[in-house]
């Protein structure tokens, strides 16, 4: 009897799944936090009546899934928090080129060379410090200073599987060379005394509490923390400025149209909205990132007019494996 019931239940599962996603909307695999993506999607649905189903997970897991599903996939578009992953998907031939009209007003640096993906917003890798220790930390001018032995036990970084972390390292590695980056990572590993953080927000929190003095984060986490705790003693440092400096590393959150989509028109509509002035402002305001459209307003508070590293986003994908080799060699957590 148990067996019979089991079969029935299994059938039930299949039925439920096939009905899980209606045929009326767009299915988007998103590697970006839902709370950043949901508002702009809701806005789009309101305007057009097209529903958007989000499946949230890690960008890496999602890109693998698209590849595995192949032609049978139901997904129409892919949002990633990392240009490197987008490029990897592009290299696997999973995406469709985006039309030129859609990409008007978007800087070349924010999209794939063959236009198979485009950035939606950009973010900066910056340092956050506890202002109580500003004096002791006065010597810090570059990201590489995080490896300084004076900072033993004071540095907070994310898990080395974090895409923003990897992408940032790729930029440093490309601009400063393998040797210098390797030495940097070895020092960094010592200074973090075995404990890495699984979220950027926790880094900012611990820096604000003074448990760690300095952290390497995406810029918007600082402002999100200040939203909740306006008096938190934290400050931003923009590293690697000046004539000699390599500049702040940037990365993008981006969008790609999956090759197998049967709803090209609607997906294009969605992308056009996301890249419109309105869509850009809704999106970048929600997550405090830099809009990629030139005309769109940059959210308040976040720093402007500083030196950004001259590393093309589309090359992040190529660097990724080299960076992972380095991480593995050092044995970063």
């Amino acid at each position, binding site marked *: 009897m148990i067996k019979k019931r*089991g079969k029935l*239940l299994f059938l039930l599962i299949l039925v439920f799944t096939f009905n*899980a996603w209606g045929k009326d909307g767009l299915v988007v695999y998103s590697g970006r936090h839902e709370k950043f993506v949901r508002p702009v999607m809701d806005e789009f649905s309101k305007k057009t009546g097209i529903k958007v189903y989000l499946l949230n*997970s890690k960008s890496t897991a999602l890109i693998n899934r698209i590849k*595995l599903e192949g032609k*049978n996939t139901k997904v129409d578009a892919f949002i990633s928090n990392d240009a490197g*992953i987008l490029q990897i998907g592009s290299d696997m031939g999973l995406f469709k080129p985006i039309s030129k009209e859609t990409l008007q007003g978007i800087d070349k640096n924010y999209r794939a060379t063959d236009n198979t993906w485009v950035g939606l917003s950009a973010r900066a890798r910056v340092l956050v410090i506890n202002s109580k220790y500003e004096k002791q930390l006065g010597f810090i001018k570059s990201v590489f200073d995080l490896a300084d032995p004076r900072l033993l036990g004071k540095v907070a970084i994310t*898990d080395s599987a974090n895409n923003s972390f990897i992408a940032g390292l790729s930029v440093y590695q490309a601009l400063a060379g393998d040797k210098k980056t390797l030495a940097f990572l070895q020092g960094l590993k010592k200074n973090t005394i*075995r404990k*890495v953080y699984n979220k950027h927000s926790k880094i900012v929190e611990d820096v604000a509490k003074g448990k760690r003095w300095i952290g390497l984060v995406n810029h918007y986490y600082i402002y999100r923390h200040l939203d909740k705790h306006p008096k938190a003693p934290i400050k931003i440092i923009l590293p690697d400025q000046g004539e000699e400096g390599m500049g702040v590393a940037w990365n993008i959150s981006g969008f790609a149209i999956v090759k197998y989509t049967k709803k090209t028109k609607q997906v294009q509509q969605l992308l056009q909205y996301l890249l419109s002035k309105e869509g850009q402002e809704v999106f970048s305001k929600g997550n405090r990132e830099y809009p990629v459209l030139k005309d769109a307003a940059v959210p308040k508070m976040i720093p402007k007019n500083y030196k950004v590293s001259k590393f093309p986003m589309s090359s992040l994908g190529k660097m990724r494996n080299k960076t992972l080799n380095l991480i593995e060699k050092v044995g970063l957590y």
Partner: protein
Amino acid sequence: MLLKTYRNKFSLSAFSAFFVVLLVLTPLLLILSNGGKLEAERWSNLWGTRAPELLWQTVKLAVAVALVTTILGVSAAWISTRYRFKGSGIIVWLLVLPLAIPTYVYADIYIRLLSENGWLYWLAQFWNEYIINSWLLKWVSSVWAWLTGDSDIVSQISDLIATCMVLSLAGFSYVFLLVRAALIKSTQSLEEAAYIHGATASEVFWRVNVPMLRPAIAASLAIVVLHTISDFGAVRTLQYETFTTEIYRQYSRNRADLSLPAALSVILVVMAFSFLVIERFFRSRQRYFASGKAIDRRYLKELTGIKLVFAWSWIGLIVFFSVFVPVALIVTESIVYWASSSASKGVWVNALNSFVMAAVVATVALVLAFPIAYYHTRKRNMMSGALMHFSNVGFVLPGPVVAIGTSVMVLMFFGQMVTALFLLAWVIAVVIRYLPLATQSQESALQQLTPSTEQAGRILGASPLQNMKRVVIPIIKPGVISAWVLVFIDALKELPAALVLGLGYETLPVVIFHQANEEMMEAAAPAALMLLIASLPALWLLMRGNRNQLASSL
């Protein structure tokens, strides 16, 4: 003739056992072969950088959790079975509730409660100001720093204690249940005999009770330790590094080859298997057949006065942290959430998803586990033991590894991946993960079935199948039910495979994990509540069986 059919039956169960073990092992083997060989240089690099440290981290956590769960579980079981006092009836019901709350929910809840605005902030403050600053810890820390050059021992201890407490609160119920069952089953006459021969109370405890309880403790610790080693949600949330977090990290770095996570998995499997062999060794020397009618009437001491206060303070302390705090928080936050926003209907869909999924997994696991358990109980030779051990592989492999391996296997068989196949892979992956629960408890259930009972059935002319239907199944049914329930509860809470293979078919754990990850625990609370409610009928079933004593087989 009779002998011949007997042999046939055994070969049938042996054949099915082989088949199941093959199914269970294939994903692992595929990962190993698919990942290719890890070059010697990277191996040595792995050993040079992380492996020893991760090994140490994992082992010390497992030992700590084993210790704490034993203390909590055995003491609670002892108090609840040996004494009679006001409210003793409800203890059992309270102490199985933690089984319905996943470890990552405990982790999230305690992180928030111990932070600045939490109810338990005073505890964190007390710890930071008095314990960490105490002369003893300072002294330990400086001696340790002088010995090893490692100045960070205090925060390591804090991390270990925090993680250990979370996993122990979530896991001690296994020890409680099994030890309690053993205590109920044990006859008082043995103790009385010891007393008559002049043994003191403590001698009776160490020389009669402890040996009697040893198999139960060993079996429950096996479950607890394996849960600890392969736990993903809680250690990830608490940022405590173990093999599992490292494997997940390697996997989520997403390199084309899986050789590094595969290599780490191999170390983990070797570790866990050696532990299981030790556990088996402890248990194998004790095999009990139920000795006819056990003498049920046990004289229970009535607790009064100060002793009653002590008993209830201890139980109350355990209940407070393991049940009251999390449940209260989940319930209040759910109410706030439902009252405030346009509460999502989605939770009901997720609950249904979880429920159906877990039921299917439990049923499949039960069916697949039976031949292994049956073969081993009857044969007890090298081969059956080996099959038994190998069927445990999913339990010690971290969820992500099982999930990846299974999807590779399904892909290999069908050549493509469609939604339905993802679901198939998902079911298989979760079944593989929790198969050991089903085999272990069915094996103990089958031990209740003495060979003589079965032989009697055959002598009276029943065919093997008839015998199975009319003798074997009725006797082991309660044990089988508890096996189903155990798998069901764990499958309900399963996270990593659902993350990797769930494919938009979101279960409650996935919702909780995502929401908690985005620091929206309020939104996760309704899902946690649903999980709790969904587990209740199963727990009830389990406890009812337990009362009938046969689930004691567990």
